[in-house]
């Protein structure tokens, strides 16, 4: 079943249009990866979906039009975004970061605390540092915190904006393993943008190629890596 669909999605900054009529789909239970080089419009795509920049066209979640909604209401509809880079609250403790992630929930403290413990189990290093200020964590830990924080809102769709940015390859691998596990065990649907094609295509159900704000190719990871020109441009072999 289709979870997210964008049609004719256009967005940009001021007079500059970055995305041109983007057509995307994420089905329930999928990990969809958008590959693109620097400046292809990856972050803009994420922002256009989460509503943090003005957009045209339509964004539908489970068939309902969410184009007109404000960012905080889009979170309430079940779309959580892990922003690019260090999107945590650096002055707040790890625990308060997670609480802030659950701020839209109205199902009571005990359930929120239970979820917090659950993510502490998934990310043991966050549990060790729960009282520390988020700004004092390493890049990889902050990225995990950003993911855990997004999950605290119990989203049906997780948007990940280049989680590998600035991380060592081993840390990135670990991070992607977590995302894959969440997808398999919890049925979490994920839309992830990346430049790191090798690692990301590994776990993708489907892949889109983004070039200067347009989708230029799509298909399964196997299909795309079979295409010679794509393999050379994005996978480097």
């Amino acid at each position: 079943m289709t979870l997210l669909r964008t049609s004719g999605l256009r967005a940009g900054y001021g007079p500059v249009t970055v995305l041109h009529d983007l057509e995307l789909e994420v089905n329930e239970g999928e990990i969809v990866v958008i590959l693109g080089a620097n400046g292809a419009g990856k972050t803009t795509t994420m922002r256009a979906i989460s509503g943090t920049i003005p957009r045209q066209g339509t964004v539908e979640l489970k068939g309902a039009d969410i184009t007109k909604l404000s960012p905080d209401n889009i979170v309430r509809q079940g779309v959580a975004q892990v922003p690019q880079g260090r999107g945590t609250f650096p002055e707040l403790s790890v625990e308060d970061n997670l609480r802030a992630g659950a701020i839209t929930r109205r199902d009571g403290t005990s359930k929120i605390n239970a979820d917090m413990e659950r993510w502490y189990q998934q990310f043991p290093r966050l549990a060790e540092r729960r009282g520390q200020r988020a700004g004092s964590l390493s890049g990889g830990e902050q990225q995990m915190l950003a993911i855990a924080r997004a999950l605290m809102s119990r989203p049906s769709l997780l948007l990940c904006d280049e989680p590998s940015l600035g991380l060592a390859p081993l840390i990135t691998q670990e991070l992607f393993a977590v995302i894959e596990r969440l997808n398999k065990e919890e049925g979490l649907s994920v839309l992830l943008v990346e430049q790191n094609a090798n690692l990301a295509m590994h776990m993708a159900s489907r892949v889109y190629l983004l070039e200067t704000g347009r989708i230029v190719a799509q298909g399964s990871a196997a299909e795309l890596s079979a295409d010679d020109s794509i393999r050379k441009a994005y996978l480097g072999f």
Partner: protein
Amino acid sequence: MELFLQRLFDGLSQGSVYSLIALGLVIIYRGTGHLNFAQGEMALFCTYVVYQCGEWGLPIGISLIIGMGVGFALGAVTEVTLIRPVAKKSQFAVFIVTLGLFQFLNWLDGAIWKDQPLPNSGVGSNQTSFPSLFPNKPTDFVNVFGAAIKLQSIGVFLLVLVLFGLLYLLFNYTKLGLAMNAVASNAESAKLVGIRTNMVLMVSWGLAAAIGALGGVVFAGINSNVNLGLMFTVFIYASAAATLGGFDSPGGAVLGGLIIGVIENMAAGYADEWVGQELKVGVALVVILVVLLVKPSGLFGTAKVERV
């Protein structure tokens, strides 16, 4: 010794007023990084409103609640109509707008209540002096080691402590406080976790102005009257207090205010020949300079450190 204690308590009650105005400055600064130049004048407007309520025969408790309510509304409306539209442009634009608001509010007070200390029997005020929140007859004092400490001084000091306690609870144990902290830390991410940042900013400005109103009323009570120049020096001292305590720390603002109040009174009292009553505003300037040179983030402010 008696003189020392007396000056200490006078300083603490004076400093409590600075703390209240500084708290307002800090609450707004944390949310948006803006320094609200009109903080003192917003408080003054509300103080006039409280005077007016007194003229209509309302008891000071009720008048204070009305004054703080007006303050909350004034702050919230200011944020939505004046600050939000220009905040997108630049910090500097906001600075100019708050400066304009400072002028406008003072002019408005003058237009409504005229340039005179109130209450004033000459214009037919029903009240004899600005109502104090605490007993302030000449006989209302307690003896502490031979020093006569005014009940009003003690009351004002306790009031600030209670208010700080309430704010501590707000910031640490409520959803609104968490949202305010999150917006202060990273507004972009705050939106992405579903915080209504506009609402948070509006409430922050309202809260800051309401606390400021309390400060104005307390100060007018100590001063026995309200006049157009009442908040000028208070605002300068409050800025010094916020700088000293750290512009993003409510606890720092309270402590900073108290310290400045005490330093001011001690300097004026003990170094009478070269500080005296006339030059004591200079004390605030010295404090600001020293803090900015030695510890720019203030005593309790968070220095911006980022791991790369």
